[in-house]
């Protein structure tokens, strides 16, 4: 499993500095199980959306979570924001356990951690102007007077490249394009100067030609203000360019975690490899060959297989091993972990 192509830029960016830094967000063996009631006479089904994940995010670091629908990446992001209370495990923010604090006492945390969601058509209140939307966090946290808030709103809009801000202040969301809306949502999240930001599929509903603009806004922010970002995406290619580390999720489990370039260039888990293979790139040669694919469809999280969750679809399946018990979490190269019996 030696890397084939090395690249100076890659080496520089893969500097394993983040493991040593002080973690801002610590997820410790968190689980989120939901009970699904199917009917009065039927037993309850347990959906294991997140099933024992440990992850740390340092200040100024971007961690990408990639995986397909049902992998639990969104749930994990929500747990880290305490929008969902974990069933088991702890969530530490700046050293403080926030996993079971009542909602009323979370206000200080809410000010320091923010989120951007997938659907810019659903996450903005259509009955408010852009100015009102971006100002709202300041109002909720009682920051500044009217003029100060207006100034900060203008600043935030400028930072997300809605320029000139004056042109956007009094518009309603329905008069904006998807990319512009999403930048309003980011401005709303950034106006509080958060230390931690969860960006949940922030570009999947935005036109391809505008995606990079949004991701660059986030990247600038992370570099300038040292914001820690959890970037949740199904698009592994963007993860490479905008994250320092990538975690690959499958059915509520973290199956691989490592520096972005290492995960892309030296994928360890069979799932990661197949996922990378499935990503199309604009190349006229593509049409001449077939892709290697992951057979079948992912099982429902209400019905996870025993052992390694990927074993029923895995081309490297080893009978008697993979389905027997969950594989251990191993560090294969510095900072690069995998849960697989191949190693």
């Amino acid at each position: 499993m030696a890397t084939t192509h090395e690249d100076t830029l890659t080496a520089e960016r893969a500097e394993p500095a983040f493991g040593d830094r002080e973690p801002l967000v610590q997820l410790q063996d968190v689980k989120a199980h939901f009970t699904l009631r199917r009917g009065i006479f039927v037993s309850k089904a347990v959906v294991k959306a997140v099933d024992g994940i440990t992850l740390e995010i340092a200040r100024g670091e971007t961690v990408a979570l990639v995986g397909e629908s049902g992998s639990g990446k969104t749930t994990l992001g929500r747990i880290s924001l305490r929008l969902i209370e974990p069933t088991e495990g702890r969530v530490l923010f700046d050293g403080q356990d926030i996993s079971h604090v009542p909602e009323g006492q979370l206000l200080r945390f809410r000010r320091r951690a923010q989120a951007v969601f997938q659907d810019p058509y659903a996450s903005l209140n259509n009955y408010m102007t852009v100015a009102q939307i971006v100002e709202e966090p300041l109002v909720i946290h009682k920051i500044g007077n009217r003029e100060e808030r207006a100034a900060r709103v203008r600043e935030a809009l400028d930072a997300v490249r809605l320029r000139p801000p004056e042109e956007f202040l009094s518009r309603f969301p329905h008069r904006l394009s998807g990319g512009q809306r999403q930048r309003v949502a980011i401005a709303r999240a950034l106006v509080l100067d958060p230390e931690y930001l969860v960006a949940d599929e922030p570009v999947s509903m935005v036109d391809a030609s505008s995606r990079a603009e949004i991701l660059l806004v986030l990247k600038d922010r992370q570099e300038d203000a040292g914001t820690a970002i959890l970037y949740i995406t199904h698009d592994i290619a963007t993860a490479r360019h905008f994250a320092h580390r990538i975690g690959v999720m499958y059915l509520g489990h973290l199956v691989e975690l490592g520096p972005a370039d290492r995960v892309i260039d030296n994928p360890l888990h069979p799932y990661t490899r197949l996922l990378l293979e499935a990503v199309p790139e604009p190349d006229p040669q593509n049409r001449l060959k077939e892709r290697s694919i992951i057979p079948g469809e992912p099982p429902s999280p209400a019905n996870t297989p025993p052992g390694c969750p990927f074993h029923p679809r895995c081309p490297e399946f080893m009978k008697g091993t993979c389905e027997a018990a969950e594989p251990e979490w191993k560090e294969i190269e510095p900072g690069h972990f995998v849960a697989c019996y191949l190693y």
Partner: protein
Amino acid sequence: MAILEVRDLYLYYETPRGPVHAVDGVSFELPEGSALGLVGESGSGKTSLGLALLRLLPKNVDTYKGSIRLEGRELMELSDEQFRREIRWRKIAMAFQGAMNVLNPVVKVWLQIAEPLLLEKTPRPQARARVEELLELVGLSKDVADRYPHELSGGMKQRVVLAAALVMNPKVVILDEPTSALDVSIQAQIMNLLKRLKRELGLSYIFITHDIALASDLCDYLGIAYAGQIVELGTSEQVLLEPEHPYTQGLLESIPRLRSTRLPSFIPGAPPDPVDLPEGCRFRERCPKAFERCTEMPPLLQGKGAGHEVRCWLLAGR
């Protein structure tokens, strides 16, 4: 030999705010057995183009004109009834976008696939056998035939839609975003299937998508659509490797590459309001290379040689 030839196709919708130029003078040729990708982002009119080819016009149509020739036969001269009887599904079929809502929720899968066959008085057992054959062809088990759509996953529904498109052995299949609601792993499965069908059945495809990378996975030719018009047309090699139109260039540069460390870039601004299009070139407001002429006159699609056509004033000088 072009199986499908489209010349100056127009489709305008009437809206309270004014006409929408959804398809605005589109021309292309589709050689037999090949795949043409029509790539466009929101508001480019790519979905309307698919509907225009099958004459599935909404009630608020304002203008619908142009020429569509299938195997040399002018389709625009056919009456609605003739078009329905002879062309739809028999010659041109379409696998629709958003397989979630495309299937009738209260009719069993097999009947939805077999419907056009049964209309031609094919005996039921024979139609049933054909459905099972098609289901296997698209990689589904036979017992899917007796299920209702809500019992299937998204990927399975997309396969059913594909099987339905093939039931009458059409010459041309229009694929309208056939994978946009699916995960990449399922998307890869479907793309492989499409390639196989093309090879084995000699199908011709028009592949409508917003994802230029995905289009390259299947298409021999690519047309890039912007605001109702095709701005660049050529072979996949020409368009992907030597893009001439600034929009195509920008679009390609905005795709993040897995195997390269170059950061993707972006095209500033947003597509124009389809009711209120700018004068001159429709892309000029977002174009980094726009000059005076672009505001004055709309550029025409001009050949650059070897079938590569570009709608840009930059090329006029050469």
